[in-house]
Each structure stands twice: as C-alpha cells, then as structure tokens.
C-alpha cells in the first residue's frame, strides 16, 4: 500500500504542475534566456549579426543617456497612468460594490464589454475623438467656443488617455474584488460605534481595500510602462515609450542584439517593481483581481 497516492503527495503535485511548468520553461524562460544570450551578439549590419560575443550592447545602454531618458520617461508615464487609473477607478468599483441594484452582474459585464472589441481598434477610435476633425474639436468650433482646433491628438495627454481607456477596467476589477472580500459587518460595527459614513469608509473600507488598489496600481503601471501600440498611434515621436525604442531598434534598424538588450532591460526593471510589490503585498491580490 506504500505506493498509493495521497492527497498531498509531492509526486502528485509535481505531476499536476508539470504541464504548466513545461509551458513556462519553453515559452517564457527559454525565450528570455535566448534573448539574454542575444544581448552579447555582435551587430554587423541591418539584419545581420554574428555570434561573436561582445559587451558592446550593454556598454552602449549603460553609457548612453538617450536610453536612460526614455526609461525614466516610461516609468513616469506608467506611474501617472497608474495613479490616474487608481483615482478614476476606485469610485466605480466602490459604486458597483455598494449598490443595491439587483442586477449587479450587468454592471460588471459593462466593464468587460470593451474587451470584446480589438484593442487596436479601440485605440484608433481616439483619433476620431481627439483629432482636428474629431468629435470634440468639431463640436467646440460649431459651438463657437474655439476658432481653431485644439491640438489634442499626437500628444502625451492623448497617449495617457488611450492607456486609461485600456487599463481602467483592470483597476476597477481589482478594487472591486478587494472590496468584495471585506466583511460588511465590520462597517456596521463601525457605524454602531458612532462613525459617520465617511469615517467608516476612511477607517474601515479604504484600509481593507488598499491591497486591491495596490494590485491594480502595479498591474496598470506594468502594462502602461510596457505598452507600445498606444504611443505609436496616439503620440508623436516625442511621446514614444521604451517599448517603441525596442520596436525601432529591432524593426527599423534591424539591430536584434541591441533590441534584445533593451528588451531585457525593460523586463528587469518592470520585474523589479513586481518583485518589490510581491515582497510587501504578496501576489495573491493580483491573482484574485485577475481571477475575478
């Protein structure tokens, strides 16, 4: 009877996670490892590199302020987007959680509806809203509020707007899940002990929902900082983020070793922030948020 499986048998656990583990190794770890090796390859000319090992790509990254400037700008845009998502996303999440509307699922469904349309098409739609011939400018001119179209498209503001549009549902879902896990009797207890609604929110609801808010902030930050399509479509050249630098290095300059170096840099930097979060907040909040 010794060989019989038990519920918490380590062999069973390994067997169950083996398929996912293999997938992760082949489709995540191995590609990253190959890219890491590529960072040491020698660029010859557009589209041609040799496997002669060199540290030239890393040297270029570490000594060229052009890359550092874009990295900092990317982190800034990511942070601003995440904070705006936090501020704008908390209230809808709170409303969905607190409402006594019996079809609450409908509100949650509305959050997911934008995902039914392609991300690129959703981003393109902002051109028709923010452009010189877009809805806002045409309306403002027809109402006589402005005489010349406002320059809204191809600016950093347009990029952040596009990112907000894309990321807000992630934030709302994260906060909502966190709010859902709060024991409502705690709020009732706070009220019974003399707290006003605002005090109960400040002393009980807000602190208990902070892990969800923090998880949402991390998700929005990482996704915004790693974005490429939104700045490409809604921004000018100056509004490019680090992802666009990687794209240009690989696709325009056909310099794969340098492109791999920049990719690894972004991976490590964003991984660093995720690691910090995991250290202090744990990953469970993100998993909860993503899992609904």
């Amino acid at each position, binding site marked *: 009877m010794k060989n019989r499986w038990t519920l918490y048998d380590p062999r069973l656990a390994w067997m169950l996670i083996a398929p996912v583990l293999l997938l992760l190794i082949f489709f995540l770890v191995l590609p990253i490892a190959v890219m890491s090796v590529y960072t040491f390859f020698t660029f010859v*000319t*557009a*589209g*041609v590199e040799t496997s002669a090992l060199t540290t030239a790509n890393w040297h270029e990254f570490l000594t060229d302020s*052009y890359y550092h400037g*874009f990295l900092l700008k990317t982190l800034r845009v990511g942070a601003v987007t995440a904070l705006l998502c936090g501020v704008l996303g908390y209230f809808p999440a709170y409303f969905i959680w607190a409402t006594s509307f019996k079809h609450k699922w409908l509100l949650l469904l509305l959050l997911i509806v934008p995902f039914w349309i392609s991300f690129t098409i959703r981003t393109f739609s902002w051109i028709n809203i923010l*452009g*010189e*011939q877009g809805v806002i400018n045409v309306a403002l001119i027809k109402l006589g509020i402005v005489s010349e179209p406002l*320059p809204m*498209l*191809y600016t950093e503001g347009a990029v952040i707007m596009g990112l907000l549009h894309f990321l807000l549902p992630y934030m709302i879902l994260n906060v909502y899940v966190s709010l859902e896990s709060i024991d409502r009797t705690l709020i009732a207890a706070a009220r019974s002990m003399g707290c006003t609604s605002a005090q109960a929110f400040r002393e009980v609801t807000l602190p208990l929902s902070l892990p969800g808010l923090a998880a949402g902030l991390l998700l929005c930050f990482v996704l915004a900082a790693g974005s490429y399509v939104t700045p490409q479509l809604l921004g*000018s*050249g*100056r509004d*490019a983020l680090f992802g*666009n*630098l990687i794209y*240009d*290095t*690989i*696709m*325009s*300059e*056909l*310099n794969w070793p340098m492109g791999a170096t920049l990719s690894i840099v972004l991976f490590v930097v964003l991984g660093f922030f995720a690691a910090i979060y995991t250290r202090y907040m744990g990953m469970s909040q993100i998993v909860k948020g993503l899992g609904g």
Partner: protein
Amino acid sequence: MKLSTTKRLERLHDRYVNGDLSRRTFLSLTAAAAASAGLSMPWMSRALAAVEQVRFDGWGGTVQEAIDKYAFQPYTAKTKIKVVQGTFGDENEIITKIKTAKPGDFQIVHSSGVNYYIKYVNAGMNSEINEANIPNMANVLQPMIEPFRKLTPKLSAVPYDYGTTGIAYNTKVISPEEAKEKGAGLLLDKKYAGKVGGYADMTTRVWYAALATGQDPNNIKDMDTIWAKVRETRDLAKKFWSSGAELMDLLSKGEIVVTDAWSGRVAALQDQGHPIGYLDPAGSYAWMEDMLILKGSPMTECEELINFMLDPATSIAVAEGQSYPPSLDPTKVKLTEKIEKLPAFDKTGSMKALTFADPVYWATNEDAWTKQWDRIAKGA
C-alpha cells in the same frame, strides 16, 4: 500502377527469400525504408506535391488592390495557383518576419528597389532567378535592371514600377504658384507649423534635408546641417506617417496641409476628388519597386507569376490601377495616355530625368543614419 510501401517491402522480402538479394542488402534496404517512413514529416508530402499557392507580401492599400485585381486574380483563373497575400507598412517589418520564418514561408515581396535589395542580399535571403523563365523581362527598362545587376549579377528581383516622393499640398490652403515657388522649402515653412507631415523614413528625411541645404543627396558633405534640417522639419511636423493609408488619411482629413508623399497615393487621392496638389521639386527622390523572390520559394511558379505580371496587358492595367508607371520600356511597349500622364513617368525610357538613390552610397551609411534618424524622430 502505383506501388504501396507495404507492397514494395513484400516484393523486397520475396527477392530475399528467392536468393536475389543478399541478407546484408535486404536488411540495409529495409532499414532505409523504415527510417524514411519514420522520419518523414507532414510537410514533406506537401513540399513534394504540386505547388498550389504562392505567397506574396506587398504594401497593401490601393497599390495591392490593383495588383490583386489585375494580376493575381487573372493569374489564379489561368493557372489555378492561388496567390496568398500579406501586407506591411514598412519593409523592415517584412524583413524581420522573414528572418524569423523558415525559408519558403515568404516567397515574393513587393520590395523598395536596390536600397532594400542589399539588405536581403546581406542577410542571405535572396534567390537566383532563371531569367529564361521570364521572357517578358525583355520589355523591362534596362536602366532599372542595371542597378540590381551591379549588386548581384544573377538577379533575385525584377523591377516592376517606379515613382517619386514629391511634395503634396492641400490646394485650399496652398496655391500651386506658392508650391512651385517654394518647392521642398514648403516642408520648412514656419507658416505651416503644426500642419506639416512627412514620411517616417530615414532616406526620405535625409534626402529632403539634403535638397533644403543645397547638397547632392548621393554625396552629402555636411551631415550636421542635414540633421539640423531634419530636426527643423520634425519641430514643424504634426505627424510623420508610416504607411500609404496613413498618408492618405492625414491629407484627406486635413490634419496636415503639406507633406512629402508618394506620387501614386497622391494620384489616388486626386482621383477621389480631394483638393490635393503634387509637385516634384528639382532633385525629387525617385525610387523603383521590384518583385523579389526569396530563398526557398517555388522558383518555377514564382517566375511564372512574375512573367504574367510583366505581360504588357497586365502590367499596364496594374499601373493604371496603382497610379505608378510600370517598368515597361515605353520605346518598346505602347503605353496608355493615362500612364503617360502619371507623375514621374519618363517617356524617354532612359530614366535620366529622375534622381535615384545611389545604392552603394546609401547602404554604406544606412545603419548609422537610421539610428540617428530614429533618435531625432523621438525628440533627440
């Protein structure tokens, strides 16, 4: 009668039993058969089968629509070989895809002339065409073929069309007289700040900066002034476009009123009734496009398709549809009045009126200049 593998092995066994084969030979042949059966992959049978389709990648939009309608569809109707199509906005994009694919996954590319031809050659992606299989090449302009032959005596590509990147302007805002007077200087006119566009491409930007600084684009002496001019245009520009569709969108919606632009796309806009004017200033950037066959392609079918595309009737129909003059020699083939009116059309067939980029000169500087342009485009 076609023999099955089982039948063949049975016969082999019979010959061994009858003493026609030695034991060693019998075992060797059986092992070889087993190995070939065991190691054969699903794609082998497809590869050995008759070619049923050819892969083509082009620039999309009105250009590819014309090629599809007037060349690919009639070709498929005639040969039953389907042309599977893909598109790209920037040719480097397709080079990246080819680099990550197996030989044969991508087959024919509507490529941007000798500047890009060098890249395929350097990366070892090019094939060798058997020109005897493309008899219609006899009608192709020799001045267009020569630059390719200088790079590879055995061609991998056949020139197909040509055009210019001139200046397009909104005639409601800029008069033809003003455009003619200012020429390429329109791109640097502060009066149109925020309404200027341009192709997000190093060659075009450097070329027009060279014209603006009075330098020969094929022999630039002072790169610092070039980059200064590129920055000047960047600061006046609203958006650098990266595809023909984007160019047409920006111009037709009035987001920009002046830009360097591809002659054929402007002709298409004019056909649609948009108030867009076009002029080729002195030294305007001329380019040619070719049909490039990649390594690993089914050569016979690809050559047959290109020969079909070069047939005068097909080539003329495509040229009229895409609004770019064909590579056919007008001294050998009678072209239509519509083609003769297209921007950049050279009736002499000598191509001397057009200024093409010197492929060797530009290839020598391509890497460094592309890197610098990418930086300037991002505000550096």
